[in-house]
């Protein structure tokens, strides 16, 4: 009797929660403000609210640039540009190719690229520039590559500044930062999962942890024939020999 009443109550809470900001342990949380669609249905299903959250910094952790992160982030940035709002990139790790960005759908002439590494005393300026852009509230979307080994309070300050920013904001950091906790409500780890595939593991989100990483199919760069070639040919694995015991006596 008691258990059925408890389960009824639970079912009721699941169906009609007390407050939009509350969620039960096994549920996916809801994002306070509207979300920006990711462009990938599998990822939308796993993110609280069904998309990239606004007014917060979402962290993406990767080993090195060039695994498909721009193709993953192109849909929200292009959507911001189509809505007429500016998109700013902070400290891109390498030179950008205008044709490639145009192929992804960007309006290349409207992008703003801010380089803070050329200063004599680098470090403080990159965070200052990002904070100014977030606080102004006039930027549509922000994509920033942060310097490595940032202190937690600097990130917290950036999160507070992001409250003024009505749009998606992404910071890309080194993969080694995954073990250190931060105040970001959404943290994803990115790895290359084969040709034109990206493996996304959700490190932190407002909801239950995700055991299996997602494998997303990115907008293809290779032709179909090339992709088939990538899939079938398997590199012969080097067989590991058993450890040999050498008697030095």
């Amino acid at each position: 009797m008691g258990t059925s009443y408890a389960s009824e109550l639970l079912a009721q809470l699941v169906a009609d929660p007390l407050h939009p900001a509350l969620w039960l342990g096994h549920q996916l949380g809801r994002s306070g403000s509207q979300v920006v669609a990711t462009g990938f249905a599998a990822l939308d299903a796993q993110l609280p609210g069904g998309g990239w959250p606004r007014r917060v910094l979402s962290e993406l952790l990767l080993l090195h640039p060039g695994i498909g992160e721009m193709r993953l982030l192109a849909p929200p940035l292009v959507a911001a540009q189509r809505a007429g709002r500016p998109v700013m990139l902070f400290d891109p790790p390498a030179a950008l190719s205008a044709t490639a960005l145009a192929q992804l759908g960007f309006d290349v002439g409207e992008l703003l690229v801010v380089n803070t590494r050329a200063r004599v005393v680098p470090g403080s300026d990159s965070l200052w520039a990002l904070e100014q852009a977030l606080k102004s509230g006039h930027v549509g979307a922000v994509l920033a590559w942060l310097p490595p080994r940032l202190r937690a309070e600097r990130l917290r300050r950036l999160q507070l500044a992001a409250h003024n920013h009505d749009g998606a904001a992404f910071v890309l950091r080194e993969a080694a930062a995954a073990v250190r906790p931060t105040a970001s409500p959404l943290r994803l780890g990115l790895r290359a999962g084969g040709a034109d595939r990206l493996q996304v593991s959700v490190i932190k989100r407002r909801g239950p942890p995700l055991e299996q990483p997602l494998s997303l199919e990115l907008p293809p760069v290779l032709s179909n024939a090339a992709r088939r070639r990538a899939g079938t040919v398997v590199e012969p694995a080097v067989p590991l020999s058993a450890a040999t015991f050498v008697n030095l006596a």
Partner: protein
Amino acid sequence: MIWVALHLPSLSLESFSATLAVPREGEAGAPPIALVDAHRISATNAAARSLGVKAGLKRATALALAPRIVLGQADTARDQRALLPVAHAALAFTPQVSMPHGHGDEADHTVLLEVQASLRYFGGLPRLLVRLADALKPLGHTVRIASAATAQGAAVLARIEPAPHCADLAATCRALHEVPVWLFGPGREHWEALQGMGLRKLGDLLGLPRSGLARRFGEGLLAEIDAALGRRPDPREPIVLAPMFESRLELFARADSTEQVLYGASVLLERLVAWLSAQHSFVRRFRLLMHHEGRWQESQRTPQATTLEIALADPSRDSAHLLVLLRERLAQLQLPAPTLELALQAEDIVKRAAPNQELFPTPQNENEGLTRLIERLQARLGADQVQRLTANEDHRPERASLLRAADAASRPGKAARASRSIAAVAKAQGRAGVASETRATGSARPVWLQPEPEPLVERNARPWYEGRVLRLLSGPERIEAGWWDDALAERDYFIAEASDGALVWIYRERLPLSGRGDGNDAGWFLHGRFG
């Protein structure tokens, strides 16, 4: 005619404290300040009064009570320079602004405005006075405001506490009857005599015969009383606004740090904003000159003054924004010597209507906000660090994209942007439609390009990267370009898969490389990564 008088009772003290480059009165860290006149304290600020320093004390007593007190002397030229911005701020309300002069004492620290013609626009005298007080607040002076039917009457009434507001001539006369006589210039000289006769207020004087007063105390006193009571015409010359703004501030102590220069510069910026609001215009460019101490010159070539010129992308009148820009530019400037005097000059202004204050963000608002953000970033990081990307017509991938410094002022118009975005969408859709073809021909480009192509090792006739072999998946795409300049590029591009699954863009040089002694150079280079 309704005359409003603005009297600044502590103008000398405030103009002196502006030269000190310290936080203003009321803020944390404001030091006690006092003015000295013939070895006696003549004026004190609130911090000094709280320590017990009063007017009339001797200099030594004051120093004993407050060892950290800063003592200075009044300077009429400096006071006039500080009074002018108040007159400019008042010019935003009426063109009839005049400053009395000639007495050479406290009566000079008054600005008179004739506001009868402006009452209807501002919605009545009380509202006009409130807006006037708001406009004067950034200048940082204590102002006493009084209004009367005559100019002289208002000037006199502004010096009593509390300052009355008289609606018409009869009320003015009634208020003036209670005014002490020494407020009138000539009355001060004869104050002891008048006091001995028991004539303290103006009402007492008016009961006496005029010829006797004229004989004993001079015509000047009677003339002034008549002007105040409205019995005598009192024309006032309105001030003329200078076409160019120039203001100097001599610092009390030499300024060694940016913060100290900024305190002085913020005072000058407020004066500039007052001058701009007087003519309803916005500034496009201004110059800050910092004059250095003479004897610090190491060589003859050390300049006497450093000039910092700030050009704005969007003409503005916002003192906070101007101060931010000045702060960022000053932080990067290396001054050769400590600064003794600051001067601000501006002549490039633009007359425009003030923008309407919007409640919700509009596209124009956003544009202005973005322009100001770009200006701020460029002021601190340098104009070349905020860039826009453009596509260049060149097949060589390293020259196909150009980064150029963003121009904050010029942004593509909305129509151009809309048409461009539609065209881009159409192009993208079109491209997606023939995606299979283009992919097959290999015109996919990587987002990330290495600034310099990285040479790769070749083993077993295959390129190796980071110790693992690269598997060639797509290609070759041949790019031959640059025969017209030194950077000839003849390359076969391939898309390859690295060990972790990431796609990289590598190429092989077609012509044999010469001059490199390395045995391993077969001409494989890593040029980009597919992001």
